[in-house]
């Protein structure tokens, strides 16, 4: 929230002149009939995307030269707001003269950029980006129809941000490669979440299957677990590195536990003037590995030592080493 956001106003003020002109006079609105296709010696393709129940639906007509795969003509019809009409019109325009394979590469970003009055000012406000998303999907549907394949043929990745067309794999990779810690950083690196913002967290402009906050939390958790495992592995003698925790020698187990405690638990205890030490590790008759510990400093005598702190230590060791671990304070 900032000064600009406090007043609000008509989203129409944020439409480019091109968008406004296309809303009033779309150039490619209409349909192509079978008769017309025959006369012009082309193959007629009709593809639908969206539904009236969602407030947006588009029908795309292509006339394709089967010898060259070139789209000779494109028309559209649209149930949707003005920006949906303008986006559909631009999408149809961009298809004309391209081969089907080239047209499939047209994204909603291309459509939005083509409607800008100048290269630096968005053609529509962020919450209207979804209106151009349909363009990408209906082209895919038309191409699938032409080639006789499933529309998924053109999309084998899960798209998290429809507006910027960023996949789940890309977001996970970017978080890992750049050690990203916030959603804002993900947006800076990928543009995911920069437009209608629906993919950032639940409750946005439209419902999404994946949200950036969840992907970030999940990927960060995986990264932390891997980091701790790597530290633990490094401290275990070389030959033991591929063994499961249960299969390690007691010395190996001790080293692994120490490594996780050093990385994850000890710094927190020390911040409060406390500490802990590992006294023994024993496997009981039921296969549970009991780790006996003793609290030191401020932790000894602390009420949380038998409650929250104990559960936290146990959870971290279970998560990183083995679910069969039990921690027993002495």
């Amino acid at each position, binding site marked *: 929230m900032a000064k600009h956001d406090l007043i609000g106003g008509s989203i129409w003020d944020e439409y480019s002149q091109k968008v406004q002109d296309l809303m009033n006079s779309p150039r490619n609105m209409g349909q192509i009939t079978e008769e017309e296709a025959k006369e012009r010696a082309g193959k007629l393709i009709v593809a*639908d995307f969206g539904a009236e*129940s969602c*407030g947006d*639906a588009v029908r795309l007509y292509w006339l394709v030269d089967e010898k060259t795969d070139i789209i000779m003509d494109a028309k559209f019809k649209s149930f949707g707001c003005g920006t*949906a009409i303008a986006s559909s019109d631009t999408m149809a325009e961009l298809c004309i003269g391209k081969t089907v394979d080239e047209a499939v590469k047209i994204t909603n970003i291309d459509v939005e950029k083509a409607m800008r009055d100048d290269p630096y000012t968005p053609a529509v406000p962020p919450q209207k980006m979804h209106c151009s998303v349909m363009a990408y999907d209906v082209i895919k549907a038309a191409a699938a129809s032409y080639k006789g394949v499933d529309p998924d043929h053109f999309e084998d990745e899960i798209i998290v941000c429809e507006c910027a067309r960023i996949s789940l794999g890309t977001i996970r990779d970017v978080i890992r490669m750049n050690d990203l810690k916030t959603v804002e950083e993900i947006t800076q690196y990928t543009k995911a979440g920069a437009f209608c913002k629906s993919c950032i967290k639940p409750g946005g402009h439209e419902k999404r299957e994946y949200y950036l906050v969840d992907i970030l939390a999940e990927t960060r958790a995986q990264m932390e677990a891997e980091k701790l495992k790597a530290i633990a592995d490094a401290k275990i003698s070389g030959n033991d590195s591929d063994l499961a925790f249960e299969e390690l020698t007691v010395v190996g187990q001790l080293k692994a536990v120490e490594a996780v405690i050093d990385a994850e638990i000890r710094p927190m205890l020390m911040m409060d003037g406390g500490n802990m030490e590992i006294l023994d590790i024993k496997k009981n008759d039921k296969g549970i590995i009991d780790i006996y510990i003793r609290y030191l400093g401020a932790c000894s005598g602390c009420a949380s030592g038998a409650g929250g702190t104990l559960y936290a230590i146990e959870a971290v060791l279970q998560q990183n080493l083995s679910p069969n671990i039990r921690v027993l304070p002495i």
Partner: protein
Amino acid sequence: MRVYLDNNATTMVDPEAFELMKPFYCEKYGNPNSLHRFGSETHPALRRAMDQLYTALNARDKDDIIVTSCATESNNWVIKGLFFDHMLNKEKDHIIISAVEHPATGAACEFLKQFGIRVSHIPVDENGLLNPEDLRNLIDDKTALVSVMWANNETGTIFPIKELAAIAHENGALFHTDATQTVGKIKIDVQDVNVDFMSFSAHKFHGPKGIGGLYIKNSQPLTSLLHGGEHMGGRRSGTLDVAGIVGMAQALENSNKLIEFENLHVRRLRDKLEDALLEIPEISVVGDRAHRLPNTILAAVKGVEGEAMLWDLNQAGIAASTGSACASETLESNPIMEAIGADKELAHTALRLSLSRFTTEEEIDYAIVHIKKAVERLRAISSTFAYTPQGHVSGL
């Protein structure tokens, strides 16, 4: 030509009320709570304005009419104020509202849920009407408040407030009505309907924006939400907006005087517009005319998305409204349309047209021409609707 058909959103200020407001900006601008002459010279106008408000609503001397900033404030005050008075200690933990309340009521109730308050909703039928028996089924001895708007802002449907208030009282609950769309359009008598609280907002009946009121029967206790002064008898702190109060009171008096005109002239123009809309194939209007405000039409225009329709009308100089999601921050369709059982497809085509006593026949004739043009153009573009000038309609 400019035609304003969005009077349920806000109205132009009554010129007579505006004239009366003017002296209180640059001449008689003293704080009415000050002791000096600059302050006290505003009192005669204040007293007169309050008398006008009490008379217009038929309130008694022992009732309170507290001036607030708007009906949103009044609605929030009742709901949150009663939370402190009746619900905080769990003596009563239940509020009942209608399924089509304005967010000023609905969201305030949702807010209270986090403090353990239960909220129930009275459903409405396909005409936007509710059945008082549904209130009987929902109410229990833990119900602190029943809050139902007098008339719905989208459909114009008028609810049986007198009957609903009686059911609430029979069951030991207080009754509040948000009369924002009703005051100034139909005759209000708070003694006849026997409500405990009633909210209203001046800009809906040709008063200024930023001022409204809350009627409180028999000075019923209600915890104040604004503290820090002794204004309005200590019930609502904040320096009095004398100009606003004077303007609101005069606007209400004038609206009440013209209620017969509203019900004849405005209703006739509304019906003319509605009849013309219904001549267009595949257009439906929500609710029957007998149970609706005389100025309101909520139409569903098959095959035409609401915002696209608003765009075309705006190009022709016509202001209307839609609850269609595309004009808002979320993609959810109009909740009122969903509450009355319209399918999602129809909900995206909702068009609200609301007249006022300043609407002219010429404006309605102009609107009819341009609405028909817009429907024709947008249905020709529509991917889910085929339309020909002969009136033949078929889904693709």
